[in-house]
């Protein structure tokens, strides 16, 4: 009766069943999946510029300053202390580097290694950076330290988000 390549009744039913089942699964799961992946889709909140230190206190030698930011973590709002290494470069411009090592996220320190007095040093795995944040070849980090967005207003230094160099 039926030709060989004809879709049999049973096959047809199975295809329709898959279709209807797929529709139901999609109807149920689409809102839920969109709900779950919301953190990926959300644009990062813009971070306000926070006053950190008076410009006059910034020297040529990097100094560590801490400042508090308002952090909004979903429903949880809190104040988080962040730190920055701040100095004036040769042209007198202010540079603010993040102390987070680009290797595995430890905290770097200025001139902490006696052998390298003019570098940032990470105690975890011996990562080193130049004064401008550039990572030194041959040490673990693969990228330079992040720099904070900065702004000088009324003689005060304001810092914002840390961005990769």
């Amino acid at each position, binding site marked *: 009766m039926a030709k060989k390549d004809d879709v049999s009744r049973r096959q047809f039913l199975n295809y329709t069943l898959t279709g209807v089942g797929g529709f139901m699964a999609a109807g*149920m*799961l689409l*809102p*839920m999946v*969109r*709900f*779950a992946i*919301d953190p990926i*889709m959300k644009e990062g909140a813009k971070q306000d510029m926070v006053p950190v230190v008076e410009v006059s206190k910034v020297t040529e030698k990097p100094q560590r300053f801490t400042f508090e930011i308002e952090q909004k973590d*979903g*429903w*949880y709002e809190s104040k988080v202390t962040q730190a920055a290494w701040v100095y004036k470069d040769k042209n007198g411009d202010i540079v603010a580097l993040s102390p987070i090592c680009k290797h595995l996220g430890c905290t770097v320190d200025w001139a902490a290694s006696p052998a390298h007095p003019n570098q940032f040093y990470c105690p975890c795995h011996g990562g080193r950076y130049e004064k401008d944040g550039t990572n030194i070849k041959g040490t673990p980090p693969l990228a330079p330290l992040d720099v904070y967005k900065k702004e000088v207003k009324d003689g005060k230094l304001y810092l914002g988000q840390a961005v990769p160099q």
Partner: protein
Amino acid sequence: MLQKMYDWVDERLDITPMWRDIADHEVPEHVNPAHHFSAFVYCFGGLTFFITVIQILSGMFLSMYYVPDIINAYESVYYLQNEVAFGVIVRGMHHWGASLVIVMMFLHTLRVFFQGAYKKPRELNWVVGVMIFGVMLGLGFTGYLLPWDMKALFATKVGLEIAQTVPVIGPALKTLLAGDATIIGAQTLTRFFAIHVFFLPGALLGLMGAHFIMIRKQGISGPL
């Protein structure tokens, strides 16, 4: 391609008999609404199961945001409802599903009752069904507290007062549920959360498994 994958697994695990066992069972004429429209009453059990699946899924997703803690519970529910995309829908599915599942289960129970389908040899399945009913009401009661809003707290207070009226063990029962003899607070919330998310769903899955196995074994009850 799919067929080849199936054959590969089948050769090693012989899944065809299991699969046929699930797929092959008869649907007699008298329960098929395509033949007698009045047979739609047989749909209620299936719809109850369908909503239960939705409840489990939406509950799993809600717990990605929810915290069972009196300081953060409300904030997290508010956040997931108002600031997370589709939060209104996912929470809505869980909220309305909770009501719909009770409606469907109620109709299913009435269908079975008025058809006398609980009679020999199906007594055990009826008992399991009534237990599922109880578990569902328990899920509704414990879930009501979780958003930690006004009605949640005060309805639970009343519910626990009712538990307290049980002779002899009442006060102990209330303390067991609330986690504290007088306070309805932090410990109550975590207890209700545990009951709502782990204990009762576990019991529900076991009971529903038993319910379905018994139906398959005995077949659906015959026409009146």
